[in-house]
């Protein structure tokens, strides 16, 4: 252990890298939610029912493409930097959220929907006041999975110039400086774990009473 290098990694490089990483994750997840939740809602409407199953299968298949590959594939088309990184990460984040939105909305019991219809609720009201609240814990679980995933794949962004904590790890691997590796990896792990715990708490709070396990 070289304390000079620990200091260099922790004080000079880490704050910026961590900041970039957090911004990267937040932007990505916001975009991913904004796209995939409406998409999931649309695909579960009776009109597109058959399409929903097809899309679900495609998403399952897409999930097998490794994160490194998606990151690498964006580079030739969008170049280097933060923007292509955010694009690649958004593609990754879409899948779990869309999948869980569809699964959550399918999981709402038809009896409940029928009861709401019988009470004179319009389809729009049923969606906002019955279906979405009931599906919310599952949707949030998807957001949580996506977030952890994006933090993880985000460390690979360093290879296409996206910055973030991966920069420290890449430097550490190239120069074989364990100090850089540990600082970069440790902060990445802490970021992922704290976001996971935070979302778990939100998930716990948002679950309607009577739905909790």
């Amino acid at each position, binding site marked *: 252990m070289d304390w000079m290098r620990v200091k260099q990694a922790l004080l000079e490089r880490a704050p910026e890298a961590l900041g970039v990483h957090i911004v990267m994750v937040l932007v990505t997840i916001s975009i991913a939610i904004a796209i995939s939740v409406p998409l999931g809602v649309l695909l579960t409407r009776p009109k597109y029912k058959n399409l929903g199953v097809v899309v679900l299968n495609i998403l399952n298949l897409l*999930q*097998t*493409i*490794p*994160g490194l590959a998606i990151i*690498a594939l964006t580079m030739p088309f969008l170049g280097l930097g933060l923007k292509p990184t955010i694009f690649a990460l958004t593609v990754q984040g879409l899948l779990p959220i869309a999948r869980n939105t569809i699964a959550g909305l399918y999981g709402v019991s038809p009896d409940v929907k029928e009861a709401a219809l019988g009470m004179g609720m319009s389809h729009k009201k049923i969606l906002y006041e019955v279906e979405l609240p009931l599906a919310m814990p599952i949707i949030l679980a998807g957001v949580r999975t996506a977030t952890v995933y994006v933090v993880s794949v985000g460390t690979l962004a360093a290879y296409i110039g996206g910055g973030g904590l991966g920069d420290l*790890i890449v430097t550490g691997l190239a120069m074989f400086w364990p100090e850089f590796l*540990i600082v970069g990896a440790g902060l990445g792990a802490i970021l992922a774990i704290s976001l996971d715990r935070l979302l778990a708490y939100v998930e716990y709070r948002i679950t309607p009473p009577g739905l909790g396990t």
Partner: protein
Amino acid sequence: MIMEYTENHFSLVLAAVIISLLLWVPVGVLITRNEKLASMVLNIANTIFCIPSLSLFAVMVTIPALGLGRRSALVALVLYSMMPLGRNVYQGVKVVDKSVIEAARGMGMNSWRILWEIQLPLATPVIFAGFRIAVVMTTGIAAIATYIGERNLGRLIAEGLTRFNIEMIVSGALLIALIAIALDTVLGIIEKQIVPKGLKVRRS
């Protein structure tokens, strides 16, 4: 070259999966006996699962006993499998109907036989679901091990990236995805053979 990379990728995944099975299935079974231990182990598994893969590989490299190369990659991959596999084994064994176990005990089976002949067979659908997730995940993450010196399909992607060679990136990505899908399909077929009749769970 591609053959060598594919072979390396495959053997790394296979080794990681076999070690994970040998390690996490017994652990999963063991923690069903002790609630406190279970929540501790599952929490640890969850936490490890959160750690970004490049980070975990990087940390493994700094441990002198592991160093650059296959051993670090293996340890990291096995640690990742702890979550899907250990949790599903635990849940699968745990949810076996109490009355079935009591009936078995009434028939004079000891706990060892109950485990082997009742609990594990009844838990196979859940265990298999976790196993399949672990295998697909391991195949994908193994690609990243290329940055710690593993010569596998990830190398195609990494080299394509530095050389600006789209064909290399695409072929690497496709091969990895194909291996993952193939393994998943094969496991699906095995699952159909192994799962006891009348227990077929519909997969969503």
